[in-house]
């Protein structure tokens, strides 16, 4: 039977699936168990996610040691990201997609949710850091069906005004519908008209296109794009970034979330804290029926938790 302290220590070391470590608990228990090695020996026996009895010792498991490194470094990572220039952040994340095989969805996220000036800024930072343009690296490294869409999205320097030509928006809604219907065996992500409209039109214009699409055809464009996750994500990022970001945050908290998904939490909280965090909190509450601050408090630990709450504009739990 695990004692209260053992349970607290387990939680503090992220043994319950929470993200981050509870630094204050660790320090306190280290103090309490000084000169009481039987306590910590007993803890090692009880915490078999991290330790397994091998020979006469409870050996530390390698993969759990790796996981601990990760959990301890969440606060470090989020702090460094927070301190960095937003354009450098975006440039580094983009570079990780291209050269470290991080998911393309991150590139779509950056290209579609940043303002025209911020996306341009990220491209400039990319040039400063890597001595290539982002466009040339994406075009060179991405050779599959995603290429057209990704190159188109990262090259965008969209008009940011409100002016929309409703006739053009209607006809482009029809053109999209047509393109999807007649795609046949072809991958919709490679259809020129789809890529053109999504990667060049202003966001105001696109919102009108999406609206007309639903009016004219009875379904949301995203529903008809269900065969292609990246395209669906593109539409969501362009139409309702707050909903998109809520989904990314939520994925980080689910059971068995992988590394990319948990990193998404830090990425979104840092990059959106100064931009649209209020809208994201609203969207999150609508989508998941819970306050973001509450979920953060429950599912994350220590300084990591506190920094997330600060980024969310909330007081400490």
């Amino acid at each position: 039977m695990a004692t209260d302290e053992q349970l607290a220590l387990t939680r503090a070391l992220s043994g319950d699936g929470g993200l981050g470590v509870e630094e204050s608990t660790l320090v306190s228990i280290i103090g309490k168990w000084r000169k009481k090695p039987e306590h910590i020996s007993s803890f090692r026996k009880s915490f078999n996610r991290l330790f397994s009895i091998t020979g006469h010792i409870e050996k530390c498991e390698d993969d759990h040691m790796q996981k601990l490194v990760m959990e301890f470094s969440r606060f470090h990572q989020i702090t460094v990201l927070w301190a960095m220039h937003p354009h450098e952040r975006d440039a580094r994340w983009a570079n990780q997609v291209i050269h470290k095989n991080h998911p393309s969805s991150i590139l779509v996220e950056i290209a579609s949710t940043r303002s025209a000036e911020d996306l341009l800024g990220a491209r400039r930072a990319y040039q400063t850091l890597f001595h290539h343009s982002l466009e040339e690296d994406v075009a060179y490294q991405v050779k599959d069906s995603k290429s057209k869409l990704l190159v188109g999205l990262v090259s965008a320097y969209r008009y940011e005004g409100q002016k929309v030509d409703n006739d053009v928006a209607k006809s482009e809604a029809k053109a999209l519908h047509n393109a999807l219907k007649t795609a046949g065996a072809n991958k919709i992500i490679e259809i020129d008209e789809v890529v053109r409209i999504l990667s060049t039109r202003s966001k105001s214009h696109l919102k009108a296109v999406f609206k007309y699409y639903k009016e004219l055809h009875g379904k949301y464009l995203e529903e008809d794009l269900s065969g292609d996750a990246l395209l669906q994500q593109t539409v969501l990022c362009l139409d309702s970034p707050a909903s998109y970001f809520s989904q990314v945050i939520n994925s980080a908290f689910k059971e068995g979330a992988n590394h990319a998904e948990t990193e998404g939490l830090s990425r979104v909280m840092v990059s959106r804290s100064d931009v649209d965090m209020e809208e994201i909190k609203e969207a999150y509450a609508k989508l998941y029926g819970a306050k973001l601050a509450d979920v953060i408090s429950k599912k994350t630990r220590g300084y990591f938790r506190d920094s997330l709450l600060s980024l969310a504009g909330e007081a400490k739990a």
Partner: protein
Amino acid sequence: MATLSIPNPVPSAIEDAEKLRKAFQGWGTDEKAMIAVLAHRDAAQRKQIKIAYEEQYKEKLLKRIESEISGHFERAVYRWIFDPVERQAIMANIAIKNKVVDFPVIIEIACINSSNELLAVKQVYQSLYKHSLEEDVASHATGDFRKLLFALVGTYRYDGEEINTELAKTEAKILNDAITKGEYNSDEIIRILSTRSKAQLQATFNCYKDAHNLSITKALSTKTPNDFVIALRAAIRCRTTPTKYFEKVLRNILQKSGMDEDALTRVIVMHAEKDLKEIKELFQTRANMTLEQAVAKKTSGDYENFLLALIGN
């Protein structure tokens, strides 16, 4: 260097506005007086004249000019008056709204400007037309031209000097593979041409020439004239040897039969305050006559006088 010549000392904007006003008044227009002012002022001075004229006479200078003169002369003066950035945005828009997109204009603007110069054109384009240059190019051009023009216009290219020799060799080979198969519209050709930095691209073309004893533009000459290949060659030349490119454009216009005033106007007006001097010098060695002589032979009247004034007469 520019061929534009400005008097020293230069009259004030108010004096110039008055001179123009005088040129418009009475019967007809004093075109010589117009040219004497407008063709000899730089972009900042022309802007001040526009402002002074409007303040003084409560009408827009451009509107007045449009009603006073016409034809090729009017089109040339209209394009000349704007500063280089606004001019290119306007000319891009005209090229796009043409029945068939006037691709040389878009290629020139996309390829000869530095990344930041092209960005400035795009910003002015957006404020003038409430669309991005990219979206208008993409929605008006079709097929292979759309692919090429959009890629050239859309990339914010790296302007650095670094060269990766291995990459240059690899990409020279990729180009050769596509060209040998006659796949001129290949995504790889377009990718390399539109995304690589100028230095890297030049290195790639040098490797190509070393490997095949043929320059890439010669390799792209097909027996049957093909607009798309013409566009590719224009893009290659604009990206690597713009002076030679414009010299050739001028020579084609001025030494062949027929006459394309719009193209002549475009080259002269877009380069008079930039690098027409180098283009002129090269023209003279290639054409065995001065640019002035060639222009005088094929144009006449006020249009001729205006062009000659810009060329440096």
